[in-house]
């Protein structure tokens, strides 16, 4: 994988605002993709009138199958959507998307795109590890269809797999949290007391992928100071922000200064708790101080996982006829596939010495001087 291409891709963070209520169709006929919700015009007459903008004049057609959390999670799925939106605006790509609401719908959605003749999809992006087993079957049944899969690997010529070293990025935000909780720090709407030695982690489900976040984070905190306690809890859901709020509140009230979440939509509750309690939080997957600016005043940083880059790159590969089917692309700190991105609002207030320590450990990980565990100790 060409590293430069990735850097180029990550440079842009075009976020399309979601639809507002404008009351019925805008008769202008302009391409409304930037403005509109996905459930609107571009797909309205796709199959029936065969003149959808999506297919007629684009070089590349892409089908997106999102993970179960659904769009609007401000992290994982929204990141994937940013990737395809960018591809759309830069690469003469058009796309169609599906939001499955149950695991058993994955094959249906994958297949719909794979077998569609009109338009004929050049690439089907499958977001999320949960799609693996469904895609194994689908990719077997449609050997001529190109697929890409995020967060899991399938060894088949028509599947390009992208996985991330979440533990590496999590290590950095853990290191950051460990350093900040040990000092008196005040910024935005939050503050750390300096005397507490506690930080928290909120996970969605207790599954290996999320445990990678947890393990990296814990290791990072310990790297800063072995005496800091990391309390962890799982919400049992990627979309229960009320539960996330309760968990985070209990952590803050219990003395934690900073809580890191790897819980999709559940994490929104973590930010809210941070705001109410006047403490800090760390986002995940996207730069959440940007995707959810309401909470920018408590988001210290985000463990960005460049799903959008994976999506964009895979589309670009197809557009440039360099599809890397059968390959596994592993994206760690080195490839800038994961990163610790400081918050838009608070980033500038974080002490430089902290930032440089974090930068050092980043380099140490890249150099192999620090090895980050992938399972909780």
């Amino acid at each position: 994988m060409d590293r430069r291409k990735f850097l180029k891709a990550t440079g842009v963070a075009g976020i399309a605002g979601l639809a507002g209520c404008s009351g019925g169709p805008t008769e202008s006929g302009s391409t409304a993709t930037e403005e509109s919700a996905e459930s609107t015009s571009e797909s309205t007459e796709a199959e029936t009138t065969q003149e959808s903008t999506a297919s007629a004049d684009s070089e590349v057609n892409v089908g997106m199958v999102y993970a179960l959390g659904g769009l609007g999670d401000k992290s994982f799925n929204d990141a994937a959507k940013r990737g395809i939106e960018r591809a759309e605006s830069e690469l003469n790509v058009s796309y169609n998307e599906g939001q499955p609401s149950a695991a058993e719908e994955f094959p249906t959605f994958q297949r719909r795109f794979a077998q569609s003749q009109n338009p004929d999809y050049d690439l089907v992006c499958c977001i999320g590890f949960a799609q693996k087993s469904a895609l194994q079957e689908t990719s077997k049944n449609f050997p001529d269809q190109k697929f890409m899969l995020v967060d899991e690997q399938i060894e088949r010529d028509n599947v390009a797999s992208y996985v991330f070293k979440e533990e590496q990025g999590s290590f950095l935000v853990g290191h950051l949290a460990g350093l900040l909780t040990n000092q008196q720090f005040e910024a935005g709407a939050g503050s750390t007391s300096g005397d507490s030695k506690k930080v928290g982690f909120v996970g969605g489900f207790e599954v290996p992928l999320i445990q990678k976040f947890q393990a990296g984070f814990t290791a990072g905190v310990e790297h800063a100071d072995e005496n800091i306690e990391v309390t962890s809890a799982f919400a049992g859901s990627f979309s229960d922000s009320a539960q996330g709020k309760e968990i985070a509140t209990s952590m803050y009230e219990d003395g934690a200064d900073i809580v890191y979440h790897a819980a999709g939509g559940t994490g929104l509750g973590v930010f809210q708790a941070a705001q109410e309690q006047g403490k800090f939080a760390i986002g995940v997957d996207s730069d959440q101080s940007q995707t959810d600016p309401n909470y920018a005043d408590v988001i210290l940083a985000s463990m960005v996982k460049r799903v959008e880059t994976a999506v964009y790159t895979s589309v670009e590969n197809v557009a440039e006829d360099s599809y890397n089917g059968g390959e596994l692309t592993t994206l760690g700190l080195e490839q800038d596939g994961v990163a610790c991105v400081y918050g838009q609002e608070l980033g500038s207030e974080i002490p430089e010495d902290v930032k440089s320590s974090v930068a050092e450990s980043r380099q140490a990980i890249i150099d192999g001087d620090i090895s980050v565990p992938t399972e909780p100790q």
Partner: protein
Amino acid sequence: MSAGTDARRTVESLLRRLVALSGVERLLISLAALVLAILVGAGIILTSGRVATCTQAAAVYFGLGFCYDPLEVYFVLFNGAFGQPFNPGIMAGNLVNPTWSPFTGPLTFTGPLLTTALFTAGWNPLNFSVALTLKETTLLIFTGLSVAVAFRAGLFNIGTQGQLVVGGLVTALVVGSLVPVLPGGLAGALLLVPVGVLSGAVAGGLYAAIPGALKAYADANEVITTIMLNFIAAQLAFVAVSEFFRNPESQVVETAPLPGYATLSSVVFPQGSDFSLFALAFALVLVGVIWFFLERTSYGYDLRTSGIQPEAAEYGGVDAKRTVVTSMMFSGALGGIGGAVWVLMVMGKWQTGVPALGFDGITVSILAGNNPLGTIPAALLFGTLKSGSLAVQFETGVPKQLVGVLRGLIILFVAMPEFFRAIGTNVVDLDADDSKAVATDGGVTGGDDE
């Protein structure tokens, strides 16, 4: 007297006689509920079509542009569920020749009526969408039967979902543990699939025995216990799999995949369509068996009697408590079979996030009037809706949750037969010459004459 009134009268008397038959009345009410739900659904589509944003109106009604066109949505819903048997072109305003009028020529399919082919050329009924529809239908027949059997026994089994989860899990575990010790291939399939279904049935039945026994011996309301047991089943199955039976290869909390021969494979339908004609055939046979059981056997009589009137059942020598437990187990076993089929036919393993087939079973059973035979059309309807909803989302942009709304509306309208009776009586005066025997005191039939 004109011929028109005569004809009207004939129709009226026909209707009246039809409505007098309770079974037919049920059917009519179900159909009326369906039609009304579709109409209300159209209203919802139009309204949301005003709110949504799009560049080009899908339809213009009353001079207003709408992003969604209900006619199109319903057409796509149906057409999508069966893999486009009809030519989508007919929706583009070409179906009826606008220049045709009753005075210009006869109404024929080859004549001026159609400008576009009605059917899609080369449509193959054995397509993926049909398989998807039938897959849902098959699963819903099992859960619908499960709920219906309990309903007939006077029990509101909301716990089919939990029984399905448990049944499916046990099926996956039993088959998974037998795979290494049994031969592969057809011989293995002939052994493993029945054993899997059986173990699912047993597990579902035993899990349902809990609320049954609680109802019979502790007088605990089964509606509440089954709701609670649904939550418990989901959580326990999750823990069991994630802690003990986890497929180490996977990020998802799921059991190890079963080998292809140990599952119900697609027969004539495309590979990977997760539908097996064997399962559908099994479901249909089961419908017949249960219908026979309920209507033609002594135990079926016991079950129905204790369902309608437990005191009368006891009077008739039925052990009420035992019947509660056994009918609950029976119902749970059917739910467990649903889980087994889900595992063996759809997933090939057990995985968290089991779809809400059990809840859908409640709606199927209600629409079917708790009649086993009725579950077939009801399951087909909901299967069509579910499968078509994906097409709707893809092709028209209308969110597939619309189908959830339609489902609720259908159930709501089925629940209020009085509404349709009231309408029916306005249209056709049913009581006109239908002098019902009414006891003189207060018009209460069947009351004491004292």
